[in-house]
């Protein structure tokens, strides 16, 4: 039942977007001017291609996000399990170890200056 309701919601939400996009396709004003369809670069003739090499920092941000995200995501079940267990001391000791590891990683990242954006 849960799954069914999710699927129905998903289908209706997608259908909504499709219908909205169709509306302007049918009603939209149509006029063919060649220059309208050109690439936009502040009104001048476009230079080079858009698929150039971008800054490595974007990529480093994403990679560090992935690793930190995995760590933090696994804290969520920990928070739930803590409230079910009697053995809280053990849980908190593990948590402190976990956090120490996370902080060591964090300090390493900050020290390596790979997330410094200004030159």
């Amino acid at each position, binding site marked *: 039942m*849960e*799954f069914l309701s*999710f*699927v129905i919601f998903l289908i209706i939400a997608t259908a909504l977007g499709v219908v909205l996009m169709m509306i302007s396709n049918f009603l939209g004003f149509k006029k063919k001017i060649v220059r309208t369809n050109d690439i936009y670069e502040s009104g001048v003739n476009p230079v080079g*291609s858009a*698929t*150039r*090499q*971008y800054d*490595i920092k*974007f*990529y*480093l941000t*994403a*990679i*560090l*996000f*992935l*690793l*930190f*995200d*995995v*760590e933090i*995501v*696994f804290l969520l*079940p*920990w928070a*739930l*399990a*803590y409230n*079910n*267990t009697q*053995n809280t001391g*053990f*849980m908190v000791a*593990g948590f402190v*170890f*976990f956090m120490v*590891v*996370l902080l*060591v*990683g964090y300090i*390493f*990242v900050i020290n*390596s200056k*790979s997330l410094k954006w200004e030159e």
Partner: protein
Amino acid sequence: MFSDILLTIITMAFALMVVFSKKTVVSALALLMTMLSIAMIYFQLGTVFLAAIQVLVNAGAIAILFVFVMMLINLEQFENNREKGKVKLVISVLAILVIMGVFALIINNNIEVLTANNIPDNSMKLLFDKLFSVYYLPFEMATVLLLAAIVACIVITGHEKAHKVELEESHE
């Protein structure tokens, strides 16, 4: 029953797209869709928590990383020069068909056992309790593994300055 078949077909279609699509960016996006449909299957099987983790980590972070890298590397300068060793392809497709056949035999012989549902309703709570009592140590070790991965990533990609000097030289 119907939704099982539909989800399977969707997942298979996206998985085929991952392998056979001509553009690598398209295959990365297809991988994202495969991950999302696998998450739907998890959801349908009743393991909502694992579905959420799958969406968060596999679809939310790993797939985004692939897309980012493709935008960084400027893949379109590489032409698609995959050479096709026809004999190798035929042999490995045959081998995979044999593997699938063996699999099908095993599944068909144990079909009652395999399609049973033996998970209790509050399985997530039990799962968490197990993870954070009996299997706490491996979990902590996995965290250390993540730390090692963070350090490795920074060290591998961290020669920004050397690279810049190189680029400037090549421009001149």
